[in-house]
């Protein structure tokens, strides 16, 4: 069973990634996250196990999936088909027989029905990552662990980071920092840059919108900053700016103040404007988007918030 530990669930490996660390990079998306932020743009990253997704626009309505599902989870419906996601989760995502799970997707030639998540070994992931080794070197890029929450699969993450470093790759991780400190600490020696999410300061608000308390997170951020003062690790704090939730100058100033006060040595603080590109993905995996119709922050708004940050002596990059 030791081998089992060294497998992880990955839902995407994206080459030509340009915004999560320096240079041209490959992002490795870990599946599964202990948080459930309402604005999450990668809802398929939240569940730890594999799950089905239906891309309706690709469906050619051949109904071959209906025939092939032994669990009766797929029904004909207009204009496409309807999935009973509860049955899928029970029988295929968490079922005992993983071999034959999701056989509906094999019958779907149009690939309208697919499985989110692939069980992979570190070698499999790195084989894909190493394909662009040549451009990492010239562009100063490398590999970025993101998700989901990479730290939610700590043994696999550590193995992957160790192997990446053995191959001389520049490594970045994006994390919610919601994890046990010793798991985080174990990874730090293998990281060049760590992006730490800080979503909200007030604890009750944090619980309301993300499902968990932020006390562990803030503790971990403080500990990481202390570590970085004596080690070669670049830290950056990131906040997704969500209209109506944390987008006032006051919200942002409070977080910037906190950084100044608690994280000596950390100067990078990046604001990421909320976007709606992930909205459509909720329906694909049979879930509902909870934020409704909020509008992304305007450029002017972002500029105003950036100004608050830079006034406090923090920089974007």
């Amino acid at each position, binding site marked *: 069973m030791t081998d089992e530990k060294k497998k992880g669930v990955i839902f995407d490996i994206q080459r030509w*990634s340009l915004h999560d660390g320096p240079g041209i990079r490959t992002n490795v998306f870990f599946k599964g996250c202990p948080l459930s932020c309402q604005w999450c743009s990668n809802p398929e990253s939240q569940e730890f196990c594999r799950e089905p997704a239906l891309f309706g626009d690709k469906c050619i309505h*051949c109904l*071959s999936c209906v025939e092939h599902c032994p669990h009766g989870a797929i029904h004909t419906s207009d204009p496409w088909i309807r999935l009973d996601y509860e049955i899928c989760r029970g029988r295929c995502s968490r079922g005992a027989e993983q071999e034959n799970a999701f056989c509906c997707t094999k019958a779907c*030639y*149009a690939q309208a029905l697919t499985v989110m998540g692939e069980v992979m070994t570190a070698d499999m992931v790195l084989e894909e990552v190493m394909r662009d080794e*040549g*451009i990492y070197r010239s562009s100063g890029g490398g590999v970025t662990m993101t998700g989901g929450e990479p730290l939610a699969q700590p043994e696999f993450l550590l193995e992957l980071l160790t192997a990446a470093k053995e191959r001389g790759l520049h490594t970045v991780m994006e994390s919610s920092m919601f994890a046990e400190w010793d798991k985080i600490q174990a990874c730090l020696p293998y990281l060049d840059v760590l992006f730490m999410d800080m979503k909200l300061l007030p604890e009750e608000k944090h619980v309301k919108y993300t499902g968990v308390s932020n006390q562990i997170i803030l503790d971990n951020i403080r500990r990481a900053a202390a570590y970085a003062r004596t080690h070669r690790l670049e830290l950056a704090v990131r906040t997704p700016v969500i209209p109506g939730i944390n987008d006032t100058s006051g919200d942002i100033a409070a977080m910037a103040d906190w950084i100044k006060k608690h994280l000596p040595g950390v100067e990078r603080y990046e604001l990421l404007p909320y976007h709606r590109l992930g909205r459509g993905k909720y329906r694909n995996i049979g879930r509902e988007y909870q934020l409704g119709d909020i509008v992304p922050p305007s450029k002017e708004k972002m500029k105003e918030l950036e100004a608050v940050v830079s006034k406090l002596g923090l920089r974007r990059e």
Partner: protein
Amino acid sequence: MSTDTIEQEPLHYQMCQKPERTERIDRLYEYVGASRVGMCMERGRIITKVYQENRALLPIQLRAVSLKEILNHMSLYILPGSLLAGNQASRPNYAPLFPEYAVDFLEEEFIGGSPYYPDERPADRIEYRRSDMPELEEIIRFWKGNTHKDRLYANLPAEAISAQDDVGAVNIVNFMHGGCGHLTPPWPWLFTHGLKEVIRLCDQHMAELEMWTVEGIEKHRFYLAAKTVCQAMIDYAHRYRDLAAELAEQEPDAKRAEELRELSRICGKVPEHPADTFHEALQFMTFVQFGIQIEDNAQGISPGRFDQVMIPYYRKDVEEGRLTRESAVELIQNFFVLLSTVERMRSWDDTAYFRGKPIFQNLTTGGIDPETGEDATNELSYIIMDCIANTRTLQPSHYVRWHKKTPEEFKLKIAETIRLGTGFPAVANDELYIPAMMNRGYSRKDASDYCIVGCAEPGVAGLRGGRTGAAWFCLAKILEVSLYNGKDPASGVTLHENQNGKDLESFESFEEVWDAFQDQMRYYAGIHAVMDNTTDRLWEEYMEEPLTSVMGCTLTVLERGKSIKRGGAKYDFTGNETIGTANTGNSLYAIKKLVFDDKMITGKQLKHALLTNFEDLTTNPTGPQIQQMCLHVPKYGNDVEEVDKIVSRVLESVCEELPKYKNTRYGRGPIGGIFQASTTTVSSNTPFGLLTGALPDGRPGGMSLSDGQSPMRGTDTKGPTAAVRSVSRCNNLILSEGSLYNLKLLPQDLSEDAGLNRLVNLSDYYFSLGGMQMQFNVVSRETLLRAQQDPAKYQNLIVRVAGYSAYFVNLEKKVQQDIIERTEERL
């Protein structure tokens, strides 16, 4: 451009970055832009008269006298404010008539309105005066039955005509309507000697001829013709000398009058005498460009390595105070605007293969010094990038040569120019082009001096004669017929049965499919050679080009006393254009995977699905299901070795087959004398797509094929790094006629300095992997969709088609769609 467009296009560089031009260039640009494409009768009128009145002359003499009469009698104009002189027809953007090549389409379209009157075409319209039609009819009557095209049809074997007109696997229509072009004159020699010296050399050679020998008689004809056209060029320049002087007299503005007097002086000097200044050299070049264009309606007549050729004049003039960087920029921009007035009339059928304005007057910038092997980037290289960014004309077209020692600063300058999104410059990799040329017999020094003389085809100034850009060779169609034992399903014609006598229903292994494809490919390569060599032979017999020869390969044609068409060039290759490479490789892989490896469907099922265009719902699996299976087999462009290797194997087989054929100049003087392959398509992937039925890669019948060596549109989903790894996996070294890869990037991926660095990194990466050529479309899908809906606001939006750039709104809808679909490599 209204401001709301610009606001909607915050990252569309062409839209939000205003060009920096002097008032003079702005006026020139607007003046030329306001003149629509039209038909000019003059050349047709003059050449008809010459042919009517000189029936005793031999073809080469007739060609020489014709050019002389045209250059002596055509209307001349000097554009308002222009510092340079030269024109091809009576108005900017007017195309001269070349009735000696073909009149059938003139009759069908101008007289008969079939399929359209040229001024009513859906795209590439040509305006003309209805009152000229009686005269045009007379011209047509004289030439009908006695044109180059008529002779070609009379000489080509029936199966070759059927291969073009019924099956649509090979096509040579482009070369039925004009000459061959695709060369660069030896500027340094011409600039330092002048045409008077060429005439003197002709006289000297003639004096040495043994006139009683056949050889002597033939050489004598050539030298006489060469002298005639050189004198005609001098006369042409002198007519501008007089015109400029006359305009100066009438000019109220003293400054402009002085400019015209200076222009008059220069036209009195070049091309007769050597050029001594930058301005003189540029005027020399302008005259020669126009002269060759007027002679034979060809494309790819290229200024070549402009920065290398002009740098001594630039430095000397700057040093001696005659020129500043600013005045050089203005002169070069003026030169660009003049070249942009050149227009080529094509039949409606032919325009489908050449949408937009692909004349291919190529400038090649940067690269290595052939003597030292060191980087040769200079001040002019940077100036040219500025001129591209700010002139924004469709002609000339531009290449840069990229190599390991290209300075980072220049790479960033190139990236900045590319980011603008005009498709210029395309990038050629010295480390591939040079060895690929050497592999076919070029010396290292000559290959190191290459420039691009077409879409992507390499030439060397003064050393390579025709003929690049030969027949179109549609691999996708060839694969299609091999699936039906040689029968073309659309026309029902079988020209050649598979050697193994099998079809998709009876193939027993993938190797049998491959063998059948190879057999058909070899068969059509043979037809290809017949078509090109027949064309060449007829050109040689009836359409020799004295000016093109003596300007294009000056020293060798003078030495040998014969034109390029008879073997006068130092290097001579016939290059092809391979179409649908990605579709062919993807389809072969899909057959291998679905029918033989995974056994998802039988060959019989696939055959039926293809013949019913994936539409039959009564089969199990249904047609649409089979199409989905086909579409989801891994595709070229995603860094999947297995399929990339098949694409590579397909290309290699063409690259190895073609050189087995010799061209009509083999053994008559030039090095080479064989066929070689390229992957340039121009826009022919659209018309060839119309002729090609459903393919095993899932592409339905009629859809545009893949362009160049690019992955099929929409099938490369893993980003640019994966795509360039696939494309570079082909063995480009044997693709000695050039490679063509269109990469579409999003403007936002190139924003800020980081974006420029990224473009440099990506190019370095591709070239380090063995990529040969790359060109870019930097424009978002949204911008193009808006341009389609609101063309008036996007009149000046330039996009890269394949090997050239065109105004997006002037393209036909199908080609627009093709460009929109071309995969956006996105985050």
